[in-house]
């Protein structure tokens, strides 16, 4: 009795293993082997491209769903937003996409400025402030630059708001430049002491 049971079980286990292996293989390869058989679906390019607007539509309705899962369901039903919506609303969970399904969809999270997404964007080094505000002509000779006294600054502050638009712009520019030049003078003086 014991002998017959084991002799039946081992082939069974082997059969299950083999069938399982092929099932997984078939499942993983499906999106790739699938596309040539359904070339009529215009929304597919290499079985990958899913309209981002459609994904966004579904995401707007069901923000809790994974965008990749939505893309997978849309691809499988031929890009029909109503069909995907219907499926979610009817309580049938969307299928988990296979790992090989990697659509190129910008995730909403990175758009919102997640630290990893934006940090990778590197910017070229910025020019220094003197170059930026064209102040080269005002830093050459030491002592030539008239340093406004405290009283003068107070005076300037009081009469800061001019009725004339051009005068206001000029005033803002002057304050900005003065701030930069003052910082530079201070830094120079500090280094002179050290």
């Amino acid at each position, binding site marked *: 009795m014991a002998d017959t049971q084991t002799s039946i079980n081992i082939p069974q286990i082997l059969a299950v293993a083999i069938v399982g292996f092929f099932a997984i293989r078939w499942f993983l390869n499906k999106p790739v082997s699938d596309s040539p058989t359904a070339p009529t679906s215009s929304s597919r390019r290499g079985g990958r491209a899913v309209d981002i607007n459609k994904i966004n539509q579904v995401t707007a309705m069901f923000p809790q769903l994974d965008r990749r899962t939505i893309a997978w369901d849309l691809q499988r039903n031929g890009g029909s937003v109503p069909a995907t919506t219907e499926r979610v609303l009817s309580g049938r969970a969307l299928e988990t996409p296979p790992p090989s399904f990697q659509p190129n969809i910008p995730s909403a999270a990175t758009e919102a400025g997640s630290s990893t997404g934006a940090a990778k964007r590197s910017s070229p080094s910025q020019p220094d402030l003197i170059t930026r505000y064209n102040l080269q002509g005002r830093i050459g000779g030491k002592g030539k630059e008239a340093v406004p006294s405290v009283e003068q600054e107070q005076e300037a502050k009081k009469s800061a708001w001019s009725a004339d638009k051009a005068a206001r712009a000029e005033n803002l520019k002057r304050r900005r430049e003065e*701030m930069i030049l003052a910082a530079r003078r201070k830094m120079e003086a500090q*280094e002179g002491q050290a």
Partner: protein
Amino acid sequence: MNSVASKRLYQEYKHLTTDPPEGITAGPVSEDDLFVWEAIIAGPEGSPYEGGVFPAELKFPKDYPLMPPTMKFLCDLWHPNVYTNGNVCISILHAPGEDPNHYEQASERWSPIQSVEKILISVMSMIAEPNDESPANVDAARMWRERRPEFEKRVKADVRKSLGL
């Protein structure tokens, strides 16, 4: 001067000009477009940024003051809460309402009772005291946390360079 946003920005510009906070200069790049400002913030005293001045661009949405502006530094600013492209990450610049991640109180975020002046003052204090919890520049945050002397040295070198010295 036709919209609410323009009127409000004009008023704020006037206020910031007649009564500017210490170490802050701000105003529209051109009065023809009140929705783009340039601000200069002085490095806070007692921080490694002391002595430096940092220009930044503020861009206001058309529905300001309902929605906050964005702020971007126009210079290299090595700071845990400033992205390497210059964008500033601070709660006062985040759209009103509750934080979906529950990091911030609604009161810390943008609301129409805030102002450009408050933003700039908040950014100034952020420069002095980085918020370690939500770093925008992960490398800077790590250096700030683990190798403070190196961090300060780098910031001071950047400040010096930015002044053309």
